[in-house]
């Protein structure tokens, strides 16, 4: 599995996968859950898959009965779960606003 620089958009997608790591997700389902456009989401899924963070599978349906082809579903890999948790934690720390108590009072000496 390759390391990735997690962007805020990628973090949004990974967070969905981390909510239930065993559950597979579909591309359009992720679009609805994250509010991202297909133009941003699908290249990102391809990138995550290329880096070994996601694996691809097929929807378990009978295409004839459903009247449509089986969709591709994505599942987060075991190694990616721990890596994603660590990187999301780091990202969260990076974007966390400073605690007000640590601010120096006006005119005071820190």
């Amino acid at each position, binding site marked *: 599995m390759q390391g990735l620089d997690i962007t805020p958009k990628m973090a949004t997608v990974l967070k969905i996968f981390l909510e239930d790591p065993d559950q597979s997700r*579909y*591309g*359009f389902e992720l*679009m609805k859950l994250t509010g991202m*456009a*297909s*133009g*941003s989401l*699908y*290249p990102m*899924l*391809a*990138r995550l*898959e*290329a*880096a070994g963070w996601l694996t691809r599978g097929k*929807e378990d349906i009978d295409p004839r009965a459903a*009247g*449509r*082809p*089986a*969709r*591709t579903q994505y599942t987060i890999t075991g190694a990616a779960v721990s890596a994603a948790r660590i990187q999301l934690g780091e990202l969260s720390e990076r974007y966390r606003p400073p605690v007000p108590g640590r601010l120096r009072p006006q005119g005071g000496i820190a």
Partner: protein
Amino acid sequence: MSAVLWGGLGGIATFVIMAALGDMVSEEIRDRLDHLPHAILRLAARQLDETERVILYEEVWLPDLAYILKGDEARPVTRLVVGTWYAVGILFSATQSARHLQEAKAKASVGKDGPAPSAHAAIRAQHYSMREKIVQPLPRLMYVCMGACFAILPIGSLFDRPTTFDYYSSPVAAVILWMLCRRASKLLKQLLRAR
């Protein structure tokens, strides 16, 4: 009296024919519009190679679009808007997805089988970013040029000779430009693949 009767009958017949025609036309339009997202997606797939087309277009994008258009939540207008929006997004990001796929393939084949069998894939992965920069913007440029031709290039009127040609000059110029862009794009692709 007879004239009034015939007039009334004629009115009813016209109304019935017009209603039937209206239904047929609206059904035809609905059917055609349903093909719009598919057409855009096919356009996106044309930017890909054969193997990438199978993986991305046939296995990922097309089933998702089918779900959008035929799923339980599909409503006539919603499905058209969502489906078209989905396909347009894919159209502008197809090459990015393909590049990630290509990189992954190249890395996998280099790692497993050594450089010899994967040489072609590795070379292609290296050149892909260059192809993306040079070749792929051409179709986009082509559409912008076509739009510009339709909007601001009435060639005939430039010469101040109002003839029938004026009415056709913009589309003709657009088609010629489109053909030239296609040819240039194909030549560039062949050139880059040959390297």
